[in-house]
């Protein structure tokens, strides 16, 4: 990394209250404070957000696509976690 090379940050924006932060993209900034400000300017200039997270891209540990099967297959095996697994008699509401 050269001295002018600012690290990369991932930006997460909460678009409105009640929603979780969603990945919006990335940007370069020398430090966290500037990253937050740059993110505010770039990703919320049409008032798309109420809250922003910035995370150094290098700090993110991601599951590898190679591990996809062991990671996600077991979940696919548990249909009882999904509401459509259950038969409910017709006419029963608010369930």
């Amino acid at each position, binding site marked *: 990394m050269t*001295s*002018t*090379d600012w690290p990369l940050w991932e930006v997460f924006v909460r678009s409105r209250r009640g929603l979780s932060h969603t990945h919006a993209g990335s*940007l370069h900034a*020398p430090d*966290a404070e500037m990253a937050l400000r740059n993110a505010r300017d770039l990703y919320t*200039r049409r008032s798309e957000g109420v809250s922003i997270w910035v995370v150094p891209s290098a700090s993110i540990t*991601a599951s590898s*696509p190679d591990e996809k099967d062991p990671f996600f297959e077991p979940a696919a095996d548990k249909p009882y976690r999904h509401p459509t697994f259950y038969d409910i008699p017709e006419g029963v509401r608010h369930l």
Partner: protein
Amino acid sequence: MTTMAPDTESYEAVFDAAVAADERIEPRDWMPDAYRASLVRQIAQHAHSEIIGMQPEANWITRAPSLRRKAILMAKVQDEAGHGLYLYSAAETLGTGRDELLDKLHSGRQKYSSIFNYPTLTWADVGAIGWLVDGAAITNQVPLCRCSYGPYARAMVRVCKEESFHQRQGYELLLTLSRGTEAQHAMAQDAVDRWWWPSLMMFGPPDDESAHSAQSMAWKIKRHSNDELRQRFVDICVPQAESLGLTLPDPDLRWNEERGHHDFGPIDWAEFHAVLRGNGPCNDQRINRRRQAHEDGAWVREAAAAYAGKHRDTQGEARA
């Protein structure tokens, strides 16, 4: 990441199946080297076009003839910087840093859209760029929202959403001029006369001469051919020009009932290739200005990096 030979085949099968099923390829997925290279080339060229494209329009910010127009133009040029950032960010997911891409732009090893090598000579050019250049860009870009590479497609969704105002403001600007004084009308017509043909060139060479098209279509990076998109653009523009009260500078332009499309005259591909090779009216000016801004800013970027180095610990504490 390992790319062991025995696995490549099965990886490639997974990749091909995903593309065939219209699924998105994501950054950490295995992908053919040529797919990655092709994407980097296209996304970089697109990002470079956004930031070089700021120059011809910024040329008029300080002379905008009303405060309303000035605010609109500033917001538009700012969006272009933003779009450049979204796109560089998409390119970074392929493992290519922005510094590397900027280096390639500055040294002429990567291109940007040739259209920005034409000068903005009058205020009406701002309108013509909005209507025709952004119009052509949108025609090109809307299909990219469904591009097979996820981060590029997502960046394009954002870009297209924001660009919708760019074309409209250009059209409205030209309409105001066209319906204004005689001098204003003439200014608008002159701008359209100068920007029409270069806009048609923005779709790239004809399909049978396009170097990258076939493979890009197979990979679903591209969804429509250059000629298809160009025809679509001409068909859209003809009635719009009529509503503007302006003419398009092509004596061969007429509706072809049989094809259900407008026929149009031959494009001067010699000019296109000359501009591409660096002989356009503004090639040197644009790249020199970009290089200059980058060099002038080096001490600022260094300063911020140095400050961050000194204060890394205290910043962490402040947030804790």
